[in-house]
């Protein structure tokens, strides 16, 4: 019999192709206005361009996704990146300290925008 052997997941091929087109579209949504909107209100109701960007960022593969690490509750935070691998703790992103959750959220947004544009 012509038996099946493990093969590449074609859904992944499709995802990468879709996301290439999606990124090209999302790049057109980045503007100083959207960035300012996010800075003012990183969490909550957003304009459609901003929400589309966030929806994309929130669905990146777990490996490498940003998270916020509490240094001092309600006072100091820094950024880490998830491993996406069970049992492997997140890796520190850098030493920058953010004074609020909103500041940290916005720093993550700026990094994600930068990655999108490059």
């Amino acid at each position, binding site marked *: *019999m*012509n*038996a*099946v052997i493990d093969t590449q997941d074609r859904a992944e091929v499709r995802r990468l192709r879709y996301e290439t087109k999606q990124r090209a579209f999302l790049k057109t949504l980045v503007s100083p206005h959207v960035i300012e909107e996010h800075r003012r209100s990183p*969490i*909550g*109701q957003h304009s459609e361009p901003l*929400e589309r960007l*966030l*929806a994309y960022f*929130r*669905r990146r*593969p*777990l490996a490498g*996704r*940003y*998270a*916020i*690490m*509490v240094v001092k*509750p*309600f006072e100091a*935070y820094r950024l*880490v990146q*998830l491993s996406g691998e*069970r*049992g*492997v*703790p*997140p890796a520190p992103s850098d030493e920058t300290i953010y004074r609020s*959750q909103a500041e*940290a*959220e916005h720093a*993550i947004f700026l990094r994600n925008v930068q990655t999108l544009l490059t």
Partner: protein
Amino acid sequence: MAQVKLFGYADKISVKPGEVIQFYVNADGTDAADAQLVRLIHGDNHPDGPGFVEQEVPSAIDGIWRVEKQYTQIGSFLEVPDPQRRLALGGSLTLFAFIHPLWPQVGHRQFLLGRWDNDKNVGFGLGIKPNGLLEFWVGRGDEVDYVEAEVPLRANMWYFVAASLDAATGRATLYQEGVVNRYNSVLGKVTPLDLRSHVAESFRFRQKHLDDTPFLMAGSRDWHDRRGDFVSQLYCGKIDRPGLFDRVLSRAELDAIRSGGVPPSDGMVAYWDTTDGYTDQGIGDVVTDIGPHKLHANGYNRPVRAQTGWNWSGRNDCFRLAPEEYGGVEFHADALIDCKWKPTKALLLADDLRSGAYAIRLRGGGGTGLGEEYIPFFVRPKQPTGRIAFLIPTASYLAYANEHLSFDAPIVQGMSGMTPILTDIDIEMYKNPEFGHGCYDSWADGQGVCYSSYHRPVINMRPKYRISSMDITWQYPADLSVIAWLEHMQYDYDVLTDEDLDREGVSALSPYPCVLSGTHPEYYSERMMDATEDYIEGGGRYIYLGANGYYWHVAFRDDEPWGLECRKLGDGWKAWEARPGEHYIGTTGQKGGPWKCLGRPPQKIMGVGFVSEGFGTSAPFERMPDSYEPSLAWITDGIEGDVIGDFGLSYGGAAGVEIDKYDLSLGTPPNTKVIASSGGHTDNYLTHGQLQLHQHPGTSGSWDHRVGADITYFPAPNDGAVLSCSSIAFGQALPVNGFDNNVSRLLANVINAFIKPGPLPDSSERAAEPEDVLVT
């Protein structure tokens, strides 16, 4: 110096004065911890509230405890007590089983069955190599002989596998055949698959045995110099009807077993009939040996029963209809039900200890960070005395116990609309599988976690803890805000837990004129549902102080209340989904899933049920016309204006996180009044699938009128009544402004009326208009 870390748990969650509670503590980096009994008052450190509040309560065990490193056996497996060593076959043998591997290439050898010492290489075993190949081996200490298959096993496919050794000739054979039908495996008949492998080798020697090696399935005996004996080579997958013979079974005999035939009696040493033991009421952890010696196997870390077997035909959806198709016993390498640590200290609870939320506070090293631990428990009164019972939703604490959503659930950021906010304790849990998982997680092999337990440290059942994916208090620490409010208002209250309600039924509630729920009482057994319904029908006055409650059907065992079983399926939003044919709870034989799918939507008891959830923002309530009815004016007495709860520790509003709604079609009693409703929620709040059976754009907060919470009130028979607050964020609004706010006022108005002997304030007006119910 090593970092000091303290973690612990107690044997019970609900105790009374005069009873003994046992504590188990694990210590890293220290051998001493400073212990203090404390009464917990408030657990949310949000700057808009009172912060963390505890009271030290002198106890006989306060002071320095000797603590030590403890070891935890994770992974589920079966162990066969065999004192006469009948399974220690030294000559010819055959091993066989139906198997359904979940993760053949997990990266370590997975043991299926045999009598094998992994440290000393003595015995025999059948297993799966790290590369996914079936393997049979024998060892005599200095050497191991083995034979392996030529075709790797595939995940989620059923096989019949066997191995035999002819002691006279040394011929060892391996037998591997697929047993795939239209229903039982991930791939069907149209896939060109070669699942078969038959291999023979000559072994140079025969197996030896050590006296104390246990016969195991789904794991093998191992040794560590500090830990001692433990079990490694843990298997991920199902095993169905395994057996052991003291002779070589022929290919034809094995073919017959593979086809569903009864194994021959000639040479049978053991044959574990995994389908034996089912009753209408479920099944336990013992797997029956129907062979000559009745060497029954005991489950460790609760292998999952009530699972489909190799011969599941797709026609019967429950073991109650066709137990012979439910022989699959499912194992997970990271399952954990009970840490089984050495006891550290016990406390005899003083006779005068007042009912409430207590904990043993432990501090080691500097006493901060992971060097501080709280082991929580609840003290009921010896005899109920309070006017109010605060019913602690411990079943829901169990379901959420040690959830890993921020790390392992790709959907969580999309759901929450925010980035996870992690602390040291989250990382510590993530690094160590010894913390186990909750019913929001999947085991590493991909299957959903259907069991949870508090016989392990539960990091999110702790004061100060914030759920990392949502950045608010959740469950236990959120419910402490209700305790803080009861304390501040100086109400005469007792606490009791879901465990007590499940065991005692309505008699646990009936001494109290008024019962107050927790903020998110989501997981309910049938006995808990019945008791709650009977309490209200019997004249009890119930305040449902949260949302998304009375939602999932779960079950506790009578004799092991620390464990919970939860099968996720049906029209609820769910972290995982039980497989087809596996929708019935092994603990009770009842169907799992949302209560709504079983004919008991929460609206039927509480007047409201789940409609939406969202995170990052909450909204206020606005008063509705019913609140201005003169007969109901007592509910909002002293509240000025239309807006209630435009503040709170959960995203700044009293309506939010998860919210419930009035719905006549789902059983809201027609005499229910809507006191206040919320609206204006963000598009992070989606309409739940129970109300919106087909998804389409435009059903989220800023689009859909249904996305909102309803505070409802209805009088029940015999002077009973129900107030439903319909929002998880409601409880987190209570502590704002020193508990002086209109949410606190509304709740106090209702409680004051509910605990007052005699009829409710609106009862005389109701008597004047008896037709009100009927005309709706």
